[in-house]
């Protein structure tokens, strides 16, 4: 463990914690700048690889930050980077949750919860629409997603089986129709 590197990680990543909004996509540009051009922790190609892994792997996509930490200073770097990105904003949420509990059952709180629900529903629908537009595989992605949805909703299919099936179908179809 290299203390100078650890401190540098903390200094670079902690401020980014406060500007992550949504899925964490808002900080990727700045992470890239810091990792590649400012601090020379990795090449642009290495950064792209880490980005691809963080999208495909389970867990929050923002574990990209942990992978950068791992690249910089091994396991210690991964742990410090994860804490730096996730802890500050989680503390804010924690305080808000405490306040929320304190005024539980207040009329305004019921109104906030009931009023925000349709806003969230609209955001989820907009999210589905934009994911469909960028999904890899075009019409195949739509077909797989909609059949999996039908199987999940009405046939009570196991979601893991559906994911595995989706992966196998794409791998087979990809071999014949989308040559690398």
């Amino acid at each position, binding site marked *: 463990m290299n203390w100078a590197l650890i401190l540098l990680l903390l200094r670079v990543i902690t401020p980014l914690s406060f500007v992550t909004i949504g899925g964490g996509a808002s900080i990727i540009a700045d992470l890239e700048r810091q990792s590649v051009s400012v601090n020379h922790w990795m090449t642009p190609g290495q950064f792209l690889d880490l980005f691809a892994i963080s999208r*495909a792997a389970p867990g929050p996509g923002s*574990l990209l930050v*942990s992978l950068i930490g*791992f690249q910089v200073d091994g396991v210690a770097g991964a742990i410090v980077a994860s804490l730096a990105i996730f802890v500050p904003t989680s503390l804010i949420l924690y305080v808000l949750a405490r306040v929320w509990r304190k005024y539980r059952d207040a009329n305004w709180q019921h109104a906030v919860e009931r009023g925000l629900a349709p806003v969230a*529903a609209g955001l989820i*629908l907009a999210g589905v629409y934009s994911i469909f537009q960028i999904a890899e595989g075009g019409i195949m992605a739509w077909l797989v997603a909609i059949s999996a949805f039908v199987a999940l909703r009405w046939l009570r299919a196991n979601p893991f089986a559906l994911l595995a099936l989706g992966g196998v179908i794409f791998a087979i*179809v990809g071999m014949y129709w*989308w040559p690398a």
Partner: protein
Amino acid sequence: MFAVSRPDRAAGCGTSSTLSNPRYDFTVFHSVEVDRPRVSLAEIFQVFTKVSLTSFGGGLSGWMYREFVEVRGWFSDSEFLSALAICQAMPGVNVVNLSVWLGFRLRGTLGAVTGFCAMIVPALIVIIPLSVAYSVWGKYAAVHHALAGIAAAALALTLNMASRVTVSAVRSDVVALAVVAVVFVGIGLLRWSMFELVIVVAPLSVAWAFHKGRPA
């Protein structure tokens, strides 16, 4: 005194054993919400870990919806949705925020810490060896295609959540339906700025809910 019924609570959430336990109120150090089934920290850890480790291809909030609302009935549709809206509005990564928020609502401070750790630590332990494996196998096209296929199938969970919450919004009232429509069209189709639209629409929707009062 425990019979604080919540009209929007999902049916069949199995609160009866908790409510009939007379020691319930005294055994819990951090007071939790009295109308909620008491969930052990181990169970919180297990379920958050499961959600985190199985969310290949994204769509984590869809998985959380399935586990917490559909399968376990720990939260109602509107509780989950308002939590999601709050977590999206606050700085931080949505799903991590959501873990802290929902964990806190289940078991207070310890629940929040448990939710946070379970969402991040196991995934962290998995992703580091994966990054090493990817540097070996990532060059094969089949791996790339399979990952895209998994991501496509994972959309089913988001679709599932979207269909369910839209139906419950439509049932609520016509104003809620209009809010869903405006947000979807504005952000999804017209690509307006999410922040600006939400800052206008959310207070109006909350004011309407306040005006309507609590459901009988």
